């Protein structure tokens, strides 16, 4: 079974870019425009094996999303990668504290992305 990855980013360009990069590597990709939309999708049964989320988004940002995600039954251990342009250590620590698995700095290229995904996603 192809692994499903959920991509959360408010920029359609970023979503398209990640989606095509991931699909090229054989992943199934679900997209959401912000934290709220992503949570809605998760609540109606989308079951990603990995979530990649942007941090700075309208309505619900990445950090808040991760916090909410961890509170959702069945998503406590789903790996979450934060993908953003911010690279400040304090933000990383905050994300870690909220339950992020890893951190990626934009712009990330396909091979790099896959390398990180392989690290956090067993069997990919």
């Amino acid at each position, binding site marked *: 079974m192809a692994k499903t990855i959920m991509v959360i980013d*408010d920029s359609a360009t970023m979503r*398209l870019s990640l989606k*095509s990069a991931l699909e090229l590597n054989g992943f199934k990709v679900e997209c959401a425009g912000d934290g709220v939309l992503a949570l809605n999708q998760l609540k109606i049964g989308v079951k990603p094996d990995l979530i990649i989320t942007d941090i700075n988004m309208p309505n619900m940002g990445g950090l808040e999303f991760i916090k909410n995600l961890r509170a959702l039954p069945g998503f406590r251990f789903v790996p979450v990668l934060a993908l953003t*342009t911010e690279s400040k250590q304090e933000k990383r620590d905050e994300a870690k504290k909220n339950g992020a698995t890893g951190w990626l700095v934009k712009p990330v290229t396909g091979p790099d992305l896959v390398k990180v995904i392989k690290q956090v996603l067993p069997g990919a």
Partner: protein
Amino acid sequence: MNPLLEQFISESRESLQGIGEKLMQLEKEPESSELMTELFRFVHTLKGNSGLFDLPELTRVLHAGEDLMDAVRNGEVAYSPLLADRLLDAMDFVGLLCDEIDTNGSTDAKHVNNSVRLADSLRQLIVVIVPTTEGASSAVVNELPIVPEQPDPANQLPLSDIPEEISMAAYRAAVTGKPLHWLAYSPVEECFFQGDDPFYQARQTPGILWGDITARTPWPKLAELDPYCCVLDFSILSTATLEELQEYYRYVPDQVRIIPVPGSFLILPQGEPNGGPVYEDFVADALKMLHANNIAGLTHATRSMLDVSNPNLWLSAALRWLLLVIELEPDNVFVCERILLSLRTMTPPVWHELAGGCDTRINGDVNSELPHNLAQEESEPVPAMLSPEVTALIAAQREILSLPDDIAWLAGRLKSVAASLSGCLHAIGANGIIQSLGAALDEALAQRASAPLLHWLDSHFKPSVDAAPFLPQSVQPATTTQIGQSVEEVKYGRRAEDSYSGPKSIKVDQVKIDRLMNLIGEMVVAKNALPYLAGRAENVFGVRDLSREIKSQYAVINRIAEEMQDTIMQVRMMPVSFVFQRFPRLVRDTSHKLGKEVNLILEGEETEADKNIIESLGDPLVHIVRNSLDHGVEMPDVRRALGKPATGTIFIRATQEADRVVIEIRDDGKGIDPEIIKRLALEKGIIDNERLERLTDQEAVNLVFAAGFSTASVISDLSGRGVGMDVVRTAIEKVNGTLQLESEKGRGTRIRLSLPLSMAVTNVMIVESNNQLFGVPIGSVVETVRIPRADIHTIKKNQATVLRGRIVPLKPLNSLLGQHVPPRANEEDELAVLIVSLGDESVGIMVDNFRETVEIILKPMTGVLAGLSAYAGSALLGDGSVLMVLDIKEIL
């Protein structure tokens, strides 16, 4: 252009629009942190996205913008209108680049300079400030020059701009002990929004003697001019004390420079430089009298000298100054001497050098050369050296006179030209030729022609090259108050006043398009009620004329509805390149991984199809291409051994055939061995021995599409993730597509996908059974036949008939739908049979009667009804009744 870039451009345009709006809102509520955060996100997203592409110019500016907005968001830099301006400028630049990418696919290298400049101008503002009570204006402080006390800034002042009588009055004041201050007031551009009235403020300056207003930059075109932006500098000469001035300008201390001016600095004689006798004798005499302290004699000599001189001359002005100095400060020998010496050189005294105590200018060589303009011939009636203003004015008059004469108001025009010219003559002191101008005007009026005036103009003012162009720039004194902007500022023609060229596409929620699609679908169906109505009018009510009218009206509505439907479908169309664009990369990466050499050829990328079709095409195509790479194309050495070129070829082509999109994927690999397929199919129990015998090679290779079939004996890394070609088939069939596979062993494989252009409209054939109507998708209907009851045989409890030498099993629709009513035959005892194709087989479905075929919008079953797999969906008919459309595969 590749869709990712396209997406980027369209999203960037939205973001730019958003940035503009947010900045406007921030103007109103500069404290709103929410707006600030949103603004930051826009810039942040833009920058993040630009990083995906190789657009260094764009990224540089956006990065600077992001850093700036980050600082603003964190309160490190206060928001100011200046910041907004710079950001908007930068965003205009980004917009310009986006447009360029949109048209050319790339940006021009020439933008590097602008990019660096804009990025710098943004970064300049990122100066961590100490919070002050002044708020908005505090950020501006970085911009305006805080002039350190230079040794004597007064010597750079344009004091010569001050008219003589005012200079003299100021000098008088200075001599009587009043302080003299030069005040340069540069209001910030957005001062009007801060409640300032710079003009009033300047006019009311205490002790004002004189003032001047200059534009900071050459005036832009009227369309680009922002009337709410103050671009004026005020220069004021005042006799108020420094304290008074500081008190008066206490609200804008950062916008004024106050420079003390020594009185003597004002002694700058002004006037016509040429003409008049040479003053050498007078200067020599006067110097003698001065040193002999013969003030009365000096005064007298100066007065008489002044009497014989033209008062407009520079020399006369110098003499007047001399008189004033003698009158006010008779013992200031030094200043008098300087003025006298300057009479020789005809250059203004250089006071600040004297103030600095540097006396080098006083030496014997002052008379070594005569100023060249003194040597000028006196006969010239008009001064040869005209100020640029006069030159421009004269050129303009010349231009007016060259216009065609055939207008009713020519007389008025001529008079106006003459008045302008006479004004010019007064200004340059050439009063002597005004009379001849009057004569020329009279003549011109008499002849009703411009020629006499033109002739006069030519004879007095030679049309010269430099006089010809009317250049307002030369009139505008432009001071360079802008800091760090030595490069001329470029506007990108994107001010709100400029012609607005909106984005070429709009983004619409897909739900809206779908809604529109549904509505037009209903419209198409509803219009079908009209022929029905016409029928009723004729048959039931017996009004034939009305029936005909309804029919003709129907034709009109039909045409419009169809056109509308076409247009809406067009909106949903997407080029297949959306799917194709991922293949070059896929093929490259995969073939590298496998150690194969593959050349990919794509054709017909511009072919369009409905969005849903295109989207459903993606996965199957990737699968097919992977299969070709994995199983089709051989390793280079194998290929060479077989006498094929080492590089394999995969060819993907999209074409439109009638109302279908056909996609062909061809490779020149090893092809599929039908024998292996047959054997495997038998092993896996997909076919039985009996069928195996009858199977053609072509049919055999198509078995790869059967469920649970995978030919690769070793599951490779690429394909064979548990999804085989049957997934491809299912996906294609889901959107009413068909696929065909042809393969020649050793030569390659060819897969042909045929998909409908759009899935919105379905053609169904209506059949009647047990007094109910059902729809059958036309795609599955092979033919309709009427079979005499006698030809129906019962074989093993199943009914069948022989049609053209083939046995066709027959099934009554009623029993398929669980109704135990036998099918009805017509008067000739024939039964209506609908032959449908089911994979490779044909099945006859016995119905009561055939009806017409109609175009319908198929709506899938929803809710509880979705569980009824026998129905593909429902549709509305013209008379408003609901038609259930059968899913033939399911009911069989």
